[in-house]
């Protein structure tokens, strides 16, 4: 019963997450950027913009300029999360279906991934404390902002519990997800009976479901941010949004 509920829930959440984000990306891409509003100094070439975007996404460059505390906590969280996610890949893939060198990489990251989990929760805790202690940040926080951090922290903590407190039969968990991932529709492998696991998976499901409707959209959003992704070339290159082009046919222009 529990296995069936989680199996269906994961299918549902995955579809929602993938379709939801894809739809947002489609929406963002569809809306024109009618004017060049790059925050200058900005790169004057496309490759320069790639570099700028890389520095923003991989190093949080603007945040570094802005506030060292948020940068440290934010970076620990995001970098930790990335490593933890990579570490989790092994639960979703069958080694027989992936090239050796990738599997080797995933195997290599396992011990690092454990520490990364602590870094992630430490960073999140720092952000959560800041949100309460710094009056400027408290002022701008809605209940959802606090809850989002709590959700992520709880995901991390329940993960630790599975590892260190109430050790979960991870092989069974893997079999469950492999049966989902390889679409063994009528042969879902049973989830082990474990409270931390149930908590962990439920919270992850919630995260997947709210992603496309929440501020987590900053992840795709940054790539569409005109102040960051535009080339500083407005004198050389004329841009004209489709709706602005319609104005051109008017009689007011000589």
């Amino acid at each position, binding site marked *: 019963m529990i296995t069936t509920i989680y199996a269906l829930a994961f299918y549902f959440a995955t579809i929602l997450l993938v379709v939801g984000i894809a739809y947002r990306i489609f929406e963002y891409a569809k809306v024109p950027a*009618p004017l060049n509003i790059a*925050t200058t*100094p900005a790169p004057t070439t496309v490759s320069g913009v790639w570099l700028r975007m890389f520095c923003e996404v991989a190093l949080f460059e603007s945040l570094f300029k802005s506030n060292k505390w948020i940068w440290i906590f934010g970076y620990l969280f995001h970098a930790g999360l990335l490593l933890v996610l990579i570490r989790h890949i092994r639960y979703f893939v069958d080694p027989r279906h992936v090239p050796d060198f990738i599997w080797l990489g995933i195997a290599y990251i396992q011990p690092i991934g454990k520490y990364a989990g602590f870094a992630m929760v430490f960073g999140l805790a720092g952000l959560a404390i800041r949100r309460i202690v710094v009056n400027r940040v408290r*002022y701008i926080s*809605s209940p959802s902002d606090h809850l989002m951090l709590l959700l992520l922290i709880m995901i991390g903590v329940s993960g630790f519990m599975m590892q260190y407190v109430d050790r979960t039969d991870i092989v069974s968990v893997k079999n469950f997800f492999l049966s989902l991932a390889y679409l063994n529709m009528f042969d879902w492998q049973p989830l082990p009976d474990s409270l931390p696991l149930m908590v962990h998976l439920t919270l992850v499901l919630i995260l997947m479901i709210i992603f496309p409707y*929440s501020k987590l959209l900053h992840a795709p959003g940054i790539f569409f941010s005109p*102040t960051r992704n535009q080339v500083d070339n407005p004198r050389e290159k004329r841009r004209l949004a489709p709706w602005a082009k319609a104005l051109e046919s008017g009689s007011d*222009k000589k």
Partner: protein
Amino acid sequence: MSELDKSELDELNSDADTALPDPLEMPVMVPDAMKDLHSFEAAPKHQNDLGFPGELVDDWQDVAIAKIGDLRQKYRSFRVYLDSCVKCGACTDKCHYYLGTGDPKNMPVARQDLLRSVYRRYYTIPGKIAPWLVGARDLTEDVLSEWYNYYHQCSQCRRCSVYCPYGIDTAEISMAAREIMDSVGKGQKYCNEIIGKVHSIGNNLGMPAKAIKATMEDFEEELEEDTGIPIKLPVDKKGADVLLVTPSADFFAEPHIDGLFGYAKVFHELGVDWTLSTTASEAGNFGMFIGSYDNMRKVSLRIREAALELGVKRIIFGECGHAWRVAYAFLNTLAGPWDFLDPKYPVPQHVCEFTFDAINDGKLEFDKTQNDHMTLTFHDSCNIARATRMGDKPGGQFEIPRAVIKAVCNNYHDMDEDTIKEGTVCCGGGGGILTDDLMDVRVKGAQPRMRALRKVTEEHGVTNLAAICAICKSQFTKVLPKYDFDMEAIQSVHQLVSNAIIMSDAPKEEETPAPESPAKSEDEPSPSSEADKKMDDPHQNDRIG
């Protein structure tokens, strides 16, 4: 207008050995400190002139909500920025209005949230289901009034966009908010009245063609008296090579006029055939401040028409901040393509780029000692610093004006690194709030800049502040005295050029026509304004403080 805190002023006036406040020092948070600051609303006529309803329409909520929907289909920035903010707090201490007022709604993220909360309520699923959870709220009259007051306490300077990890630009949100308010009939008098004047007369000041011509004739006489050379300020001259588009403040305000004299002297010295236009007699484009593409485009098209009519080959813009943003970043889109102009030159060019190139080519000579009575610093105007470029390298907008100043002045010192260049703090008067009814926030918003200035004054003997923006110049003239500086401490960059430039066709000493202009007539500082007379007095050197 509320006065500055007494203790704050005492602090500002304290001796050099007392610790000066950090320019970016965090204020004590005072919720709602500025909530009642309400600038004059536009009269029905001013609204109608721009194609907006004269007064608040009956179904204004529906219209406003529909407008939000419309804008999110037209502007990617608006759409992405409303969705992407994570409330990390990185921007909370970056706005000069928050630093100066302590009102938390002047923190960039909180200012955006005034609108984002409404967007969430009507356009997102969580906001529709559980508004209390995600900080969504209904659009009520209180909210509209809050929008009006706080979106007119934003100078759209984009300092926050530099520091936001996603590049969220509050200026984009505040422009959209003003456009939404205009669409329901709640516009601001200052901006909308001015845009109307540009549409009907040709410039922000409302100066008709005749008056411009007469003023330029007066200026020519003044220049000839000062220099002994017939330096021209041509108006509507067909077939000229260069069309100069400059803020109309350059025709009537100090120190703007001295900057205009500087351009004229440079053009004269280089033998450039140039002209002003009476129809495109304004570089500024307040259409940007109210987020109206239509108005911004209409204002820009005047320049295209003037360029075509006069048959010029190049367009050069005078010293004006947001004008340079619209010119540099938007003009090609709004009024281009410029294929009828000389392709050898960028369209448009900034007058600083022009002068800088001439200096580099060795075509201009200066007597730098003419500016020796001053030690200069440079105020990077926000729109130029963070929304444009000069020259062909990123950051040219910082280097080129400084290079021009250093070519004509011996004494120069920058302010604190985190208050200049891309981190520059706004003068406090940009973005359509340079109006007396907003003086309170103008004075308070200038605090970080004034503190940075105080620091270089005390530590490096800086006496004067140079800028290349008409709004900055006007704003500083008003607020410098509030912080115990001399109102004349603000200089145009081309005023400094004007002081130092050596005119090669200047008459020999004995031929000097003006009796009161002795020996060094050729490099005499420009026009006989009160400012210049004082400058000649060595005891008046300490112009600031």
